[in-house]
Structure formats: C-alpha cells, structure tokens
C-alpha cells in the first residue's frame, strides 16, 4: 500500500483497497460463484463512505476492477443521483477508470435498487449494493438460526408468509426485495430491486455479484443461472409496474417513477432507467428529426 503524497490515486493503492484485501474479497467471490445464492461471510473493511451507502458494492467493484474497465454506477436506475455520482467520483479518484452512463458501454455496472432495462451481456458484470443480505431477516432476525434454515433449505416460513399475504389481501404484499430461489437451492434476497426486475435475473448472461458491507456478506449468481421468484401454482409471480407510459420517451414497458407535478394531484411518469430513456429519446429524434420530443403530459387524479 502506498501512502506517498506523490503517488497516483490520491496516495492510495489502485481502487483504494490494498492487494491483500482484494485477494480476500476475490476468494469470497469465487466461493460465492461456486455456490450460487449462498451468503459467504467476508472481512468487510471500513470504507471512507458510510455503511448502508454502498460499501459492500464498492468493495466488490474495487476487488474486480482493472484499469481498462469502464464503470457505470446507478442508484434508482439513474446515473445522476447524488450517491451514484459520489461513488463514480470515488472510483475515478482512486482508480482513474473511465466512467460511463451508457449501459451497453460499461464492463462493470454497480447498482442500487435497479437492474438496467437494456439486456446485459456475457462481457458485463452487475454489482449490487445490498443492505440486508438475509432474505429471512423479517421473519427470523437471529443469524445463527437463519444459517441453519439455509443449510436445511428450510424455507417453509417464507412460503407461509406469502400464503398469509394472499389469504389476507389477495396479493403478495412484497413489492421489492422479493425473495428468489437460486439454482433451485438457496433462497436469496435480490436486494431491494422492485419485483418488476426479478425476471431479469433469470438466466442473465452477465455475472451478478452482491456485496453487503455492513452485514459482511457476499453472494453471487453466475451467468445463465436459474433464478425463480417464489410463488404458488395458483398464484403465479407477476411483475408489476405503474400503469402508464414514460412522458419523455413513451416507453410502455420500462419501470416508471411517479413524479408529482403540483399539489393538486397532478403527476406524470418517467423512466427510472435514465440511460434507457435518453437512448430512446435520441433514437426517436434521429428517426424523425422534424418532430420534437412529446411534451410531458400531466394527468390529474379523478
């Protein structure tokens, strides 16, 4: 580790972590890839960013990052949210890597709460920031107990919870962090992505890595692995999105953010994935240069 003021990357090793720490994280990553969906404890370090703000994802990214990588960081699907900006800035400062907002250009995408709309490829790695890696924690807070449950694949508690939801409300009330079974063996938290994104994890060509810094766990879904959202035969899993289309690009299939436009119930919907939205707007502008982007329509509440 170099601390000399004159050395590159602000006096720190490439990508901040020292090489021994990176090696320790890579060992945990290899184990995680070998046992898809299984949570591997690792000696998470204290980072110069707060716990809960992406320290797990940052450590995973730092451990796999090379000088030729192109990094994209999103939070809520957007590249320009403050925490995403802060993390991208961190890596440009301590690793000097090229950043991008284009999903297709990135080799590593670090994300909080979303999976990009543009399908990922084998050449890409998706790194998730994970606040609570344990999918069972609301049902059983004791880690010693949940470890036993995973060992025995004893997931009845979660099925009962979903069943009770359906019996009480007619629907599963879990809207995000919707639990998945990985490779038919381990119950896994997909991190707090909306349930809408869950199907994208299934047989994804890209490697998916999950880092939870505060909880000191790493887990992974290797490329083309089966990832099933929990459901019942008579109540199949259904991803939901707001019933509307993006006011900027007109997409009717992307995940939408609801934006309040006034205090009288006015609102509009826009794509949560900003890169996807911008690329569609650009494509529309090239296809029909005369027409301008449709003016945002606001709708009132009935």
């Amino acid at each position: 580790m170099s601390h000399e003021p004159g050395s590159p990357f602000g006096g720190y090793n490439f990508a901040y972590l020292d090489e021994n720490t990176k090696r320790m994280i890579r060992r945990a990553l290899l184990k995680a890839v070998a046992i898809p969906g299984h949570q591997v404890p690792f000696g998470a370090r204290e980072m110069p960013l707060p716990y809960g703000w992406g320290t797990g994802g940052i450590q995973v990214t730092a451990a796999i990052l090379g000088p030729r990588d192109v990094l994209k960081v999103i939070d809520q699907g957007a590249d320009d949210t403050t925490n995403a900006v802060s993390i991208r800035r961190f890596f440009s400062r301590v690793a000097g890597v090229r950043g991008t907002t284009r999903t297709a250009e990135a080799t590593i995408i670090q994300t909080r709460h979303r999976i990009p709309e543009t399908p990922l490829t084998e050449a890409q790695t998706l790194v998730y920031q994970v606040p609570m890696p344990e999918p069972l924690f609301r049902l059983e807070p004791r880690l010693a107990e949940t470890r036993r449950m995973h060992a025995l694949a004893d997931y009845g508690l979660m099925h009962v919870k979903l069943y009770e939801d359906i019996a009480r409300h007619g629907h599963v009330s879990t809207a995000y962090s919707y639990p998945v079974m990985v490779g038919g063996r381990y119950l896994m938290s997909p991190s707090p992505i909306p349930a809408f994104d869950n199907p994208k994890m299934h047989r994804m060509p890209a490697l998916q890595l999950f880092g939870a810094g505060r909880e000191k766990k790493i887990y992974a879904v290797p490329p083309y692995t089966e990832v099933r959202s929990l459901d019942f035969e008579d109540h199949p899993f259904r991803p939901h999105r707001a019933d509307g289309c993006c006011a900027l690009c007109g997409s009717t299939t992307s995940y939408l953010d609801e934006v309040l436009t006034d205090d009288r119930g006015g609102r509009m919907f826009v794509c949560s994935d900003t890169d996807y939205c911008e690329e569609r707007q650009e494509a529309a502008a090239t296809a029909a240069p005369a027409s301008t982007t449709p003016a945002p329509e606001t709708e009132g509440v009935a």
Partner: protein
Amino acid sequence: MAYVAVKGGERAIGNAHAWLEETRRGDPSLPALSVAQIEAQMGLAVDRVMAEGACHDRGLAALAIKQAQGDLIEAAFLLRAYRTTLPRFGHALPLETGAMRIRRRVSATYKDLPGGQVLGPTYDYTHRLLDFALAAEGAPPPPPAPQAEAPQEHAPHVTELLAREGLMAREAEARGEPADLTRAPLAFPASRAARLQNLARGDEGFLLGLGYSTQRGYGNSHPFVGEIRQGSVTVCLMPPELGFEIEIGEIDVTECQMVNQFHGSKAEPPQFTRGYGLALGRGERKAMAMALVDRALMAGDLGEERTAPAQDEEFVLLHSDNVEATGFVEHLKLPHYVDFQSELEVVRRMRATAEAALRAIAEPAREEEVAE
C-alpha cells in the same frame, strides 16, 4: 411545475461541501481552534473518539473532531476509515493492567486495599454548577494540583485478591491469536475476545442504556464495582522472528472490573463472577457500562436464563457499533423512490381489490331493497 430531470448532482455535491467547510469554520473573525487545543482541552471528547474509532492516536482523534465540527460519531467514523488503511503487522500481548501507572483507582467493595483508593482527576463530587468564571477570556491557568509525596505502592487487582481466595471464578487463558473484528466478520456464538473487542469499540450511549437496563431488572445482575483504574500501560509485542517480547509504547486506558453474584450450578459452587470493561483513554462511563454488558452476555455460559436484551449476544453485538448504525439509519435519506413506487402500486392494487369486495357485498343488498 414542469418536470425537470435532476441533473448536475456533481456540482450540487461540490457546492454543498463548500458550504459545509464554511459552516465548519464558523465566524472567521474568531480565531480557528487548533488541533493541539482540542487535544489538550477537549481531552474526554478525544478519548471517546479514540475508543469508538478504535485507534489510539490523540492527535488524529483531535483532527477528526475539528473536521467533524465536534460530531463525535462522525469523528470516530473518520478515524476508523483512516485506521482501516493501515497495515496490520501483528497483535500485542495482553496488557498488564495490574502494572498500570495509575492516575485514578477506586474500589467500591473495600474501604481500603493494597494500592489504596486514588480519586484522580474526576468529575465525581463536583457540584454541577456552571462555572461562569470559565467564560471569561484570558483567565490565568489554574495552580498545579497538590501531589502525593510517597511513591505509589503496587496495586493488585481486586478480582485477583478474590480469585486467590477461590471466591472469584478464574477465566481460562485464551491461547493463540485472538479474533480480529477488523479482518474477519463476527460469527455466532462469538468468542469472548471478539465480544470484548466489539464492546470496546461500541457506542458509549448504546452500552450505557443496555448496562442501565440490567440494573433495572432486564437481566438480573447484582454488580459491585470491584475496581476502576485509569492510567497508562505498556504495550508489548512478540515478533515471531525474534521470539522475545519488546515494548513498543505506552497507551492510556480505563479498566473496570465488576464483581457479580453467581449462585452456583450443579458443577460449580457459589462464587463471584466478573464483568470486564476496557476503554482506550479516559472512558470510565464506557468501561463501567461495558463491564455490565459483558457480564450480562455470560448468562448462557453460566446456565442462567436469557430473557433480557442485554443477554442476547446477537442483539448486543450486532447493534453496538455506531459507525455501522449511523450509516444504516442515515442511508434512509438516500433516494428510495423505486421501492416506494413499487409499494405504491401494491397498495393501490390491494385497495382496488378491497373496494371491489365491498361493492360486491353492497350491491346485492341494494337489489333486495329495490325488490321490497
């Protein structure tokens, strides 16, 4: 209001940090606090940051306090983030706290004992009246405090005196390299070393509340302060390539050993048990609270029923760290609108289902009214 995609997060962050720096400095017509002043005159704050920042360096702790505008948790975080970049070159031998150069030492179990009672520089027995004279600028420094003439005699641990009589359980000496929380994640059940390490870095307020709860019936402990001692101890290291120990320096610590009742079990006769607390610097409140919590956490090992939060190892150890806690609590201010949107959709869908069900009940009733 038209929708404006929020852009320029980077500029906003830059501007916010410039404003923060201006706020931190405060009124520029007043002289800036020097790190040396903080180190010398805010000593207890420095000690708390060293303890919770898990790094014994008064100068860096003082710098962190200055940078954090006196927010001690933020300062502890700064110190931790620095500490984690330092290479680890070994582990010290256990501190010989029995050979401490004592500044303060009190026992609540004996009126007098070898080594005596030494009050030291304490707020105990001060009357908490604001001293308006301190508000005056340029007052001369206080006269030096009177010093004891006789050199201090050896002060053995109270718990050691009890143990020699067989009244205090002796603890098995741990062999080999102790756990290191900064390298390996906590696993449960945790070793005593990992537990004490966690508590020593833990938040003073959290431990204080938990310790207090054990005194109010949440986990029965009947504690006596066997002894509190505060002073400097020598740190020794045994490099494997040398094979003998070398002194590498001296640190200030506060140690508290609580003596607790234990009624005995089938295997063991009634005797006292100990709760142990140690904090870097002068952290008496922290060391006492830690000792209470340490003893409460032994409930399982001693065959006592575990009923209270302070006796629950996972609960205590996973929530004691204020750097972890503050990060996760404060992350709630990060955007969550994707998750909130998915919740909105679910609540709307469930309301639609519920309203449809209500209508289905109400409509046949209306038909009946018409029929009548």
